[in-house]
């Protein structure tokens, strides 16, 4: 009898089931636990208080990203004593429990969701968790990766597994060729705009379709990264030749005969023909455009050529009130073309858009131009390796020459736990993932865009359709 057709998610899920007790959540084995300074101290302390050991230090990897300043001086002597203590606590905990730590001065330091993939620690078919909701990023490799709270961090430390109720499956296919100027960021903003910030609650999304398969690994990571902004537990993309080409030769990738064996196993992971999902959605790529969020959650999004919408269009009274509140917070009026909205700040960075391809795309827009006089713009590479690569390609020179600040790696102004924050009332074009009230600084106003759109806004001082952009040659800078 033929075996049942299974989805990518089902294959990964079923191969990690430790136990399936009756009337209880399944016990899911965790292959890789990523740790950072903010959500781990209470978990390590919990282990100590209960006298439990860290079960698998070799499956645990730590870095410092959320709190760390992005200036060289700031990193050597961290002025924020509470942040410094939290960072130091991670160092002590990693030493005590034998966890590999990519510390601030390490050549591999960076945002946890950037370094896992670029070092080859993240691999297809794995289960990966981290005390950070954007852990969904790693699903780009065909891993089942999801964010957890600190109690669960402690649970994984103690047991290397987690009780999990089985999520539903949701296939989202983007079919066709993405129009010029429409990036992976626009794909994810377009999806969230359609299904809402709770559109995938309780689900693992599998992204599929020709537009997704045509994306680079960087683009796939951007799409999976924002799965959580649609409420999803995780996002996954089937591994293919693009995945294998990215992984080959990385520090922790297998070599020689092992590599061939690994690839053969990974080729078994994609969903079988005939596999079924709880929900499905097909989006024609041609319908997507460069997007700008106008409100205070990522679902409040419009094409760059659109106007700020009218609250009267909201589906319910409570939605309408949320809508009005968002307009008030963002200081925007319904009917205003979003292209007319002027900005004060630009942030290119975060686990969503700080990889080499993002920086290349932004630099291409910036080359030959100057940052608008009213705008303060910064680029924060996702990792030391991304920064070094960008510098070897001269991208830092393009950004600096245009008037951008070129910073050291970290989460930075995505959530403003370090000194990089907006002042009250400041408006920012940001390549990050959340435009919540106060996310980038109390009273700050965040508009989510792609790296190309952020770069164009930095130059013109207002949101600008990158499809109309004049690409100048770099030489004019010399």
């Amino acid at each position, binding site marked *: 009898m033929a075996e049942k057709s299974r989805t990518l998610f089902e294959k990964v899920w079923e191969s990690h089931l430790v136990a399936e007790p009756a009337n209880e959540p399944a016990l899911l084995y965790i292959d890789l636990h990523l740790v950072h300074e903010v959500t781990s101290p209470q978990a390590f302390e919990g282990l100590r208080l*209960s006298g439990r050991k860290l079960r698998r230090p*070799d499956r645990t990897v730590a870095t410092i990203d959320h709190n760390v300043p992005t200036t060289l001086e700031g990193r050597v002597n961290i002025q924020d004593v509470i942040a410094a203590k939290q960072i130091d606590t991670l160092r002590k905990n990693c030493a005590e429990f034998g966890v590999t730590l990519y510390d*601030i001065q390490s050549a591999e330091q960076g945002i946890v969701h950037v370094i896992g993939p670029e070092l080859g620690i993240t691999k297809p078919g794995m289960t990966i968790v981290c005390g950070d909701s954007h852990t969904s990023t790693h699903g780009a490799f065909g891993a089942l990766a999801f964010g957890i*709270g600190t109690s669960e961090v402690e649970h994984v430390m103690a047991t290397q597994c987690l009780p999990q109720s089985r999520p539903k499956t949701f296939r989202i296919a983007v079919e066709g060729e993405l129009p010029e100027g429409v990036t992976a960021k626009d794909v994810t903003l377009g999806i969230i705009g359609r299904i809402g910030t709770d559109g995938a609650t309780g689900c693992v999304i599998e992204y599929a379709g020709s537009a997704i398969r045509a994306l680079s690994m960087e683009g796939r990571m951007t799409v999976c990264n924002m799965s959580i902004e649609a409420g999803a537990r995780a996002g996954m993309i089937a591994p293919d030749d693009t995945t294998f080409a990215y992984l080959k030769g990385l520090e922790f990738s297998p070599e020689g005969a092992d590599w061939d064996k690994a690839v053969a196993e990974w080729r078994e992971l994609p969903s079988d023909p005939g596999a079924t999902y709880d929900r499905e959605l097909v989006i024609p790529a041609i319908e997507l455009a460069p997007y700008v969020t106008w409100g205070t959650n990522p679902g409040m999004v419009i094409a760059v050529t659109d106007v700020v919408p009218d609250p009267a269009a909201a589906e319910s009274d409570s939605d309408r009130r949320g809508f009005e509140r968002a307009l008030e917070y963002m200081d925007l009026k319904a009917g205003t073309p979003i292209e007319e909205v002027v900005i004060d700040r630009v942030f290119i960075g975060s686990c969503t858009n700080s990889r080499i391809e993002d920086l290349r795309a932004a630099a291409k827009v910036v080359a030959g131009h100057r940052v608008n006089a009213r705008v303060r713009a910064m680029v924060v590479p996702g990792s030391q390796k991304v920064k070094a690569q960008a510098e070897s390609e001269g991208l830092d020179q393009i950004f600096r020459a245009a008037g951008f600040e070129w910073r050291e790696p970290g989460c930075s102004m995505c959530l403003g736990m370090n000194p990089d924050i907006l002042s009250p009332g400041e408006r920012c074009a940001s390549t990050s993932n*959340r435009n919540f009230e*106060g*996310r980038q600084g109390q009273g700050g106003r965040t508009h989510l865009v792609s790296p190309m759109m952020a770069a164009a806004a930095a130059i013109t001082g207002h949101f600008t359709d990158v499809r109309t952009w004049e690409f100048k040659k770099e030489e004019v800078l010399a």
Partner: protein
Amino acid sequence: MQSFRTLTSGVLPLDRVNVDTDQIIPKQFLKRIERTGYGEFLFFDWRKDPAFELNNPRYKGAQILVAAKNFGCGSSREHAAWALSNYGFRCVIAPSFADIFHSNAGKNGILLVTLPEEQVQTLLDRAAKTDSYSLTVSLEDQTVRDAQGFSASFSIDPFRRDCLLQGLDDIALSLRHAGELDTFEQQHDAAFWVAPKPHAAQHTGEAAQA
């Protein structure tokens, strides 16, 4: 973990959709390494508005929070659950909750009750308009009742219910499967030979830091 059986308490109505964990506890309070002391920072930015519900004396001492859909969305920070719990909330009622917050609340003895939007709207209206409004939430009966005849039953995952009723520690529960875990892990380490493994060597910058 503190157990939850039946609670009768005042009600704080928070008629807002998509209340994210950045609002429940802003990032500047995530730098602390303690697990307690977050209550005073609950809804820190919103509390600056004197008209914000948490500042209204009529809701003082409320242990039940009622909110609109998709409560707890966004960041995985368990600090949001700690802040609610430290402040004194033991139960949140809403039409829907975000997944990670749902899990975090359970680990901290906070009962999340999902009711249909119309019923939640009734509770929001009554809490705002009725003096000394209170609700009785029974996890044993899986019901929510008020003195004006409101009565609704809710469903909850039976395992989550047992954990809350008995105040069970999740780690201890998982370790009932220690034997299965050992067996699984041995086979898995062999079968998933390619899985992690970062070198044991420490990549620290301690020299540079010192």
